[in-house]
């Protein structure tokens, strides 16, 4: 458990996030008694061949920060200068996060479907693991078949759950028996790691069962009592195990851990921590949503008054796993987002080429459209699957649009390098389909994991930087829930701003309207929805007045309907996609 210090003397913070494709360094310092982002550096990650050492990428990113700021961060031995010196070199606090490392394949072993197996699955799905098989007590496969299954699957990790603390004993040990035999049949270096997060009283016996067969780590029980699950403590231990497994294959993690005082977080955990923190600040009746679309993983973090639901999809990303998207989505569902005619075979080739060269970027407009179409489908797929793990009263009950979330924080390479804010905004609206009123916030510098990690040692940093201009508010979005015939009146709106004439008018179904309301500007919005349209004032057709803040795009009225229904006719659909890009300011 990490102690949060009440006050701190440290001022300068350096954060490094090592991704599978890029490594980012961010320097924060105190300006006018507030922590502010001073500079960022970005380099290609060097976690992969030929170097298999993250150190070089980290130093290249730090070198960029040094160049921009003139502040020396590394000494003659290329080590981090810490604490900072009176000459202004070095930093006071260093934090690090990572999502880089080879894919780790895991088998889940648990007692009961719907109980411990479900908790174990949620634990595995909240981090950088690829769950390839499950074995339960009610498994119909014979013991020897389970052994052959484990041998054939060649997992990197076996995650064992089951039993409340002081509860089930024999059944857990019986289940472990075959697993430990299988682990023992793999040669030493190929033996899987084991993490036991079940009945705490069985820890010693579990370690004994695996003895010299596998390295066993013990984690707090995911279901300590009958009343429910508690994944957080086990998640922390699992994160450590994953970090150790990555460090065994890629060099440089030990140095980062040393610089950060032994505290190297997984990026997804740090991302989730920020979202959970926000959920304790914002309206507890609504959730906070975080979406991070990376090259190798897509992270969906939803938090409801402090209850974090984290989902990490290692099979969904805009790099190496991109072809996996075709297992979840048809080509048609990807191409529907395009504003231009790109043949299916060209798009398919693009998907496979991008998986081979994940760091490349689109030079041409059509490729950019395709990249954003893929991003929409990846986010939509990941979100739909993540929602199944949200509390039943918060997941929208199966409606195809997103239940009210405030704010929606989005990050990831594709969104952060969007040529115009409207690109990112429209991709988020299409993919997430927020219902009611939300604020879209973009993390253009990939700071969220850094702030999550920093929150453990410098709680004020995350608070100050989240409120600063380092995160870009794209704007408030009003998305009336309802449908019907295109052109039907949806609502009358009136935006009043100090010093400006009010803007008033009627929006119709199918329209995407952006009203001028810049970053930091505040306005009073009056909405009178038509019968059958709900904007979140308590019931369909109910009018209301609210204070809205602007953003890089403006005040967005997304009257395209919820659920968003695109025309079946390809030509008409492309025209509309094109029009909406112009309407939201992505194209000019």
């Amino acid at each position, binding site marked *: 458990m990490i102690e949060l210090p009440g006050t701190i003397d440290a001022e300068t913070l350096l954060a490094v996030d090592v991704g599978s494709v890029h490594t980012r360094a961010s320097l924060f310092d105190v300006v006018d008694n507030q922590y502010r982002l001073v500079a960022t550096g970005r380099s290609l990650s060097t976690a992969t061949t030929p170097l298999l050492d993250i150190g070089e990428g980290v130093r290249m990113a730090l070198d960029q920060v040094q160049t921009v700021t003139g502040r020396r961060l590394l000494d003659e031995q290329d080590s981090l200068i810490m604490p900072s010196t009176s000459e202004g070199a070095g930093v006071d606090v260093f934090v690090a996060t990572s999502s880089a490392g080879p894919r780790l394949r895991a088998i889940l072993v648990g007692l009961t479907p719907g109980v411990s197996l479900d908790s174990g699955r949620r634990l595995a799905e909240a981090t950088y693991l690829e769950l390839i098989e499950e074995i339960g007590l009610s498994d119909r496969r014979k013991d020897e078949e389970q052994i052959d299954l484990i041998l054939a699957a060649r997992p990197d990790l076996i995650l064992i759950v089951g039993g409340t603390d002081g509860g089930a004993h024999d059944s857990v040990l019986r289940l472990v028996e075959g697993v430990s035999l299988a682990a023992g049949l793999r040669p030493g270096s190929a033996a899987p790691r084991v993490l036991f997060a079940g009945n705490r009283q069985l820890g010693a016996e579990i370690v004994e069962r695996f003895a010299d067969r596998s390295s066993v780590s013990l984690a707090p029980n995911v279901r300590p009592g009958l009343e429910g699950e508690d994944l957080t403590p086990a998640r922390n231990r699992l994160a450590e195990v994953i970090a150790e497994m990555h460090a065994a294959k890629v060099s440089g993690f030990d140095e980062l851990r040393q610089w950060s005082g032994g505290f190297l977080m997984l990026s997804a955990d740090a991302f989730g921590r920020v979202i959970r923190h926000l959920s304790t600040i914002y309206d507890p009746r609504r959730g906070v949503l975080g979406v991070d679309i990376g090259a190798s993983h897509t992270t969906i973090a939803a938090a409801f008054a402090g209850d974090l639901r984290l989902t990490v999809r290692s099979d969904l990303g805009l790099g190496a796993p991109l072809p996996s998207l075709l297992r979840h989505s048809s080509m048609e569902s990807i191409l529907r987002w395009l504003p231009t005619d790109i043949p299916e075979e060209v798009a398919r080739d693009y998907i496979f080429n991008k998986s081979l060269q994940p760091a490349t970027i689109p030079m041409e407009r059509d490729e950019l459209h395709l990249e954003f179409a893929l991003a929409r489908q990846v986010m939509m797929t990941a979100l739909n699957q993540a929602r199944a793990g949200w509390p039943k009263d918060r997941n929208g009950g199966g409606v195809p649009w997103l239940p009210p979330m405030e704010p929606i924080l989005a990050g990831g390479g594709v969104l952060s*390098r969007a040529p115009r804010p409207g690109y990112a905004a429209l991709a988020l609206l299409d993919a997430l389909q927020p219902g009611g009123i939300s604020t879209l916030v973009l993390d253009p510098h990939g700071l969220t994991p850094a702030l999550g990690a920093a929150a453990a040692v410098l709680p004020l940093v995350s608070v100050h930087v989240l409120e600063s201009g380092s995160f870009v508010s794209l704007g408030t979005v009003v998305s009336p829930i309802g449908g019907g015939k295109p052109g039907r009146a949806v609502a009358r709106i009136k935006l009043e701003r100090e010093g400006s004439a009010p803007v008033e008018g009627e929006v119709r179904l199918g329209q995407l309207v952006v009203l001028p309301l810049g970053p930091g500007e505040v306005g009073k919005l009056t909405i009178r929805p038509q019968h059958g349209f709900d904007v979140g004032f308590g019931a369909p057709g109910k009018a209301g007045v609210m204070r809205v803040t602007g953003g890089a795009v403006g005040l967005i009225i997304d009257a395209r309907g919820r659920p968003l229904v695109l025309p079946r006719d390809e030509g008409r659909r492309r025209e509309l996609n094109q029009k909406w890009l112009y309407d939201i300011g992505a194209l000019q």
Partner: protein
Amino acid sequence: MKASYLPPVSHVVPLTIVRRDRTLPFPGTVTARLNERVQAVDVIAEAETAPRHIFLDLARGLGVSAKEAPGFLVRQKGDRVEMGDTIAGPVGVARRTVRAPSDGRIVALEGSRVLFEVRGEPIVLRAGMPAIVVSSDGVQTVTLEAPAGLVQGIWGNGRQDFGVLRTLGGGPAARIQTDMLDINLRGAVLVGGMCDQPAPLHQATELNVRGVVLGSITSDLIPAALRLPYPLMITEGFGSLPMNSAAYALLTGNVGRDAAVDARPGDRYSYQRPEVIIPLPAAKQADVPDDVIPLAKGVRVRVLRAPFHGAVGFVRDLPQKAADFPSGLLARSATIEIEGLGNRLIPLANLEVIQ
């Protein structure tokens, strides 16, 4: 000052020292000796597969209690047995025994149960190229070294083989057709431009070819490519992409020589990459190729993405300021002098060094 940018590197080298690990999928026995000169087809290590396991219940088989059963074992953990061999017993007047259900090995004793590993097919590891054995761990991995030409690809269908290089003709941009594949190419490693239909790939199967090396195939051919019995390697990617001029020149310049095609797909976390190795007579000047080459003026590069995907050129300038592109993206870039196209500005992210 750190190198500011380390792009990926692909090797297209006329003569170098190639050092490669050959590894069994699980431990067995290395049969090659240190410093031994091996040929491509030579077996350098072998192992036995373990296709399945069976639990033998001694108590039930012998008709005794679970506590007594282990006392009747006549074989130990690790023992190899043949089908019908007695593992435990005899017990009682009926002289009940537990016998081996097939050839195999006793791998574990768990209470009154024996875990029996059924003996599988032997597997062998071949050298894959003429080389010298320079090291070995004795049980799983052998390191080979040879002077050779080397062409690294970007994707392969997972297979490996060895044969004589032949060209399909038509140049690096030619679409291969079935009529380009005649009986004279039987048993060869074929070099061609690109493929967008399955028929030529199947025709190559009929000719028993030892490998096909192309610039590209269309991605809809991936399932068919994965089923081919011979190695298929592509150098550029998926779509209709000509083979880059450097690789094509090197491969066609060695027509008639033997070549090893290792079409195992690349793994970003191991040193495995699809590649063609062309063993050459020993040369004193050859070096091991560089894996890390910072981007600098004069370095030869290849473009990894449209609109110049596959084009090879030289870095002429590395502007400090980011450039904007028709996509609207702003990115650090390099001026590349591309053969036949002149100077073009390309994002650094879309470049790899060709050595």
